[in-house]
């Protein structure tokens, strides 16, 4: 059971932190989640 189970997820990753696709891979392991938006931002 995960806090992300059956949730729609918006992902904003950080180029120098954890990028969006990496977070997406983690989120996909929760049950019934749907990634509705995923992006990586560069703040520098």
């Amino acid at each position: 059971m995960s806090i992300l189970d059956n949730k729609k997820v918006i992902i904003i990753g950080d180029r120098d932190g954890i990028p969006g696709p990496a977070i997406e891979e983690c989120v996909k392991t929760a049950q019934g989640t749907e990634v509705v938006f995923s992006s990586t931002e560069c703040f520098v």
Partner: protein
Amino acid sequence: MNCSVVKAAGYVLVHTPDMILHNGTTQTTEKITNPDSEYLKKVPEHIRPYEEVVNYAPNQAYIGNITPEELKGYEMPWYDKDVPNSNRFGKFGEIMPQDEFIGLLKISDAFDLVKLEKEFVKVIKEKLSAHPFFNENDLAKIKEGEELSEIEVQVKDHHAEAIYNHGKLVGCVKKAHEIDVNLNAHVMYENLVVKASGILAFKHLLHNNKIDPAEIEYVIECSEEACGDMNQRGGGNFAKAIAESGEAINATGSDTRGFCAAPTHALIKAAALVQAGVYENVVIVAGGATAKLGMNGKDHVKKGLPILEDVLGGFAVLISKNDGVNPILRTDLVGRHTVGTGSSPQAVITSLITAPLDKGGLKITDIDKYSVEMQNPDVTKPAGAGDVPTSNYKMIAAIGVKRKELERKDLGSFVEKHGMPGWAPTQGHIPSGVPYLGFAREDLTEGKLNKVMIVGKGSLFLGRMTNLFDGVSIIMERNPGNIEEKVTGASKEEVKTMIAEAMRDFASHLLKE
């Protein structure tokens, strides 16, 4: 392997207070989406005067007046502390004020697109005549100037990009074509700024190190702008334009792009070209980006800070054939983030940091200093982006622990010993790996270090062509001093002489018999 060396480096900053409001995209976007915003009203109250920008510790580090180690001694935040005895000029370059830079824009203008107001011209001509790099020929390029009314008409009726100095209209950049969007006034302004700040860095590199510009054979420009027209957006080429203005009469060049990673790509390319013997002296150079001025301004204003992204950055580095003295670039120890690398921090650090180490049989702790994304944390922390160099060092250390090359308890001391505080302005390509090259050259010759790694990363996804990001790295080390002489085959003449001698010997033997 006879590696190339990093022979010299030049670094410049340009204080551009008016360009924050008029050309920084955070502000220009706000003008479009929310023209009456409180933020826009507050911007002018948060602009630092030139003297404060000169006295600012990270800026003094960028031009070489204080070392990264000395910068560590200044307690953060840095913006409210002055560096004693700070100077506009440093061993690597200078911090140029805006009005002089506007004059340099005109000097750099090959197509008479920059128009400056008459009275302003008089003032900047006098100021620039005191500058060590600008002679009568340069000053003549500024011309006599125009009536203010003519400039106003250009801005109002002909879509010229206005140039302001302390809130006053002092000139404009005209569009270079009636309908071509790639030659409109806005693009020409950005491109002329890159060219002019690149020229300033190039001149500092040559002048401060007494390098004859005629010895430069190739220039690689590696900023983030693109010059070209509607038939070839980004066709180029800033490199040759900068070489021309720097009187590098024997040079050609080209532009290398890769977002913030481009300078490290350029460094590796330059090292390879010199090592292969194609050219003896290659300069990598980049100017600064007006678009990024005040990028995090909203957070700075919200927190009552000055807008700290108030300078353009520029740099130029000379890569030359091995002289037995300057630090060598190990082209055999290069890291690269490949298409298949993946985006997890572990995959990124492995490809950029540990892959080149493994090639050389080295441990993470064998590199004395890592130069990563050297963004100034005074700028990024209040904006919520954290301390970028420190985050990078922590990730490198974590991989070191995983590889059992470092004890977990030594994570903090690794960051302290193998890292540096960030001192470069958030100008994209400017802080990426290369700000340390000047200090690294010193640390690896007169200093005590033996190996450093230069790492550049770039956010390719911003161009909407791929979701990938990018990065490359290279190890730079103390010169062992033994220059390998290239073993060449015998020349045609030598072969002829050898055959002639053999024939003579043979003939003399026959005669004896």
